[in-house]
């Protein structure tokens, strides 16, 4: 009997549930309290809650009309609108939000998402990433967005970006996951993971991140660990994958497993294969 699978980020990060409840009940002070008390990466990750919450457009627009300089409201509304695929509406909110809160990494992270959705050119995406990097050189949610942007335009640039960002990251941090993300994307697009170089690069990245003694369970760790597990599972290194599945315990991240199909089904299958059905 396999253990239960906790795919909801709220299982690993209690603030997700708090923010959801605050958004659902239209309690802006509670939303702000949750976001303001979060670390920068945690705060940016929390804004994705707005992408999945329905019926909050009017609420957030109301908050913004009361205080146009509330960057948290701008980031949430932008993320929410981008999540529903309306990148133009999102960007219109974000242009103003970035103008009023130019040092908010969550806003620049969403603007990297909209740059991809709106098919803006590489020089504009780069400008946005540079603005983000000026605030935080290792802002992993924004790095992931920029990597995905580059992946759609210039795989070589994506590869360089992932490797450079991983190499420059603080040992034991989340950013080296970009190497795993890059290889998974290339695998989905071109099926190239059966390559010794890929394995070496994954090992190097994991050594600087999930396998590093300083690796901590900060916000984002489930997805990062799960991403490495998926990359190892895809190249057939069951031993490494099993180790990471073990570290995850009951926690799992739907992304990037959803690239392969229904996450719960896919994770079960790969976990079973990696662990020999023991976990």
């Amino acid at each position, binding site marked *: 009997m396999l253990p239960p699978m906790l795919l909801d980020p709220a299982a690993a990060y209690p603030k997700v549930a708090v923010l959801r409840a605050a958004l659902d009940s239209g309690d802006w002070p509670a939303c702000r309290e949750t976001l303001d008390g979060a670390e920068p990466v945690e705060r940016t990750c929390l804004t994705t809650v707005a992408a999945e919450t329905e019926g909050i457009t009017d609420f957030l627009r109301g908050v913004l009309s009361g205080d*146009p300089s509330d960057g948290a409201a701008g980031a949430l509304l932008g993320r929410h609108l981008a999540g529903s695929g309306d990148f133009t509406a999102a960007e219109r909110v974000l242009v103003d939000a970035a*103008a009023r809160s130019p040092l908010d990494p969550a806003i620049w992270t969403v603007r990297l998402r909209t740059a991809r959705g709106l098919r803006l050119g590489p020089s*504009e995406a780069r400008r946005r990433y540079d603005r983000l990097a000026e605030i935080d050189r290792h802002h992993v949610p924004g790095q992931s967005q920029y990597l995905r942007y580059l992946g759609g335009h210039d795989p070589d640039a994506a590869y360089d970006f992932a490797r450079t960002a991983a190499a420059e990251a603080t040992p034991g941090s989340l950013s080296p996951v970009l190497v795993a993300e890059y290889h998974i994307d290339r695998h989905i697009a071109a099926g190239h993971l059966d390559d010794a170089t890929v394995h070496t690069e994954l090992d190097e990245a994991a050594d600087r991140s999930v396998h590093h003694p300083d690796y901590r369970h900060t916000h984002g760790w489930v997805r990062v660990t799960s991403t490495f597990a998926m990359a190892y599972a895809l190249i057939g290194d069951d031993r490494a994958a099993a180790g990471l599945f073990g570290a995850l315990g009951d926690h799992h991240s739907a992304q990037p497993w959803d690239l392969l199909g229904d996450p719960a089904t896919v994770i079960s299958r790969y976990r079973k294969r990696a662990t020999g059905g023991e976990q």
Partner: protein
Amino acid sequence: MITRLEVDGVPALHAPADGPMHAGLVFRVGTADETLPLRGITRLIEHLVTGAPGSTGPEHTYFHTRGTPTEIADFLSGVCTALRNPSADRIAEARERMTAPRDRDPLPMWRYGARSYGVASYPEWALPGLTTDQVGDWIARWFTRANAALWVAGDEVPGGLSLDLADGTRQPAPRAVTVLPATPAWFTGPDGTAGWDTVVHRDAGAAVFATVLERRLQHELRDRAGVAEDARTEYEPRADGTARILALAEAVPGGQDGALGGLIDVLAELRAGRIDEDEVGTVVKHTGVGLRDAESRGARLPGQAFNLLAGRAVQTLDEALAEVRAVTAGDVAAVATAAYDAGLLMAPGTGGADWAGYTAAPTMSETVLDGRTHRGRGDRNLRLISGADGISVVEGDVVGTVRYDACAAVLAWPDGARQLIGEDAVMARVEPTLYRDAEQVVHDVDQWIPERLRIGMPPRDRDRIPQPRPATEREEEPVDTRRPLITLLVAGMATLFVVAGGLGVLTMMLTQGPSGGVLGDVGEYGLVASASVLFGTFTGRIALDSAVELRRQQHARNPARSD
């Protein structure tokens, strides 16, 4: 200290100045007073009168020189004498001197259409056919004693100076009427340049805003993001109490999307009021230094002479300084908001700027006129409609309609082709080869359009005349290559600018920088030089006949259209 006086009935301003003496004679006439059929006539007269550098701007034309008192007197008296005798030979000589192609600024046309301030965007169509009578009439109306002002910077007004000008009346500046249904707006401009302009109330706060904007653009686009070689703004005060502010950023190769995005962000930042007192203080201080410097060189005089012509008060240095010093960050923020709301973006590339909250400026007509329909030869998609009210050309969902009562000009080729240009700048092209019985339409157009709106064009080479293509051939062609036909028929607004490179416009701005020469620009009060820099003209081949270029432009103009 500026003194007011009068020389031969011409109002004059005199002030002492460091360095060589200089003086200028300005007339209240410019490109905004021209019509399309007379486009270029003012600059032709400028060249007719003098070989020295003069300038034709939207509202003013001036003749300026430096030298000894005698040289200055001779020069200005010579200008007046030359205006009295515009012989056919001298018109021909002047035309010869004006053949170099010049870049044109596309923004005015998108804001004002084919009238008044928008005329500056068009080629100098009048040049080849201007008659001695037309030139004489133009001089009689505009280059008169009542419509002139003089400035002299130096020890004293030269004793031998006489201004023998014809009598006339003072001519007010034309009214600026926008054709943009909504702002902020955008249109697709040439590759490589991101641009923007706006129209705001004319005051020191607006001049300071223009400089703050320039500094921000240079910081964000050039220094920080590295997407632009450089960025510049221009502040162009107008007689009607408004000022145009223009910003241009020349992108590095591959950087135009970033330049546009950065421009959009900087404008949004300023609108949001992110302007600090220190920054405004720095700009105010520099402007003050510039004003003092301009005063010492006599470089404030031309601007004040323009004020005289507009019936505005002459401003002393102290008044100007006080007005600039009083500008606060709050004032600049208020200008920024108004400027943003009235803005017009010139977007390079194919993405436009809807995503940033700007509305697309109209590129074609909304209505098709009633009338007799002429189907395209072998092309069902193509229709030419000739009615009592005007002409419509329709291909698919692209419509070009020009009403006879709102027609700015008709280009007429010897082979029968006619291109109507509406006051809203939309064009409708009648190509007789492409429609059944189109000779009738050419006849209609020639009947309805008065001679004064007609612009005769030189003969076209045979391969420039479009031919209908057999249906079978069309079907085999990829969709992409069918496009030129549309552009030839409903040549949209953008197609006028095939030759006008934004890059050249910018280069001129950059090389003629703010402090170049004795007449350096100091915002509101400095000078003229800036106002005339962009309003160049184009006298070379008229750029309406290159299918390849037109297609490129059409793609750029409306990338979303799939036809």
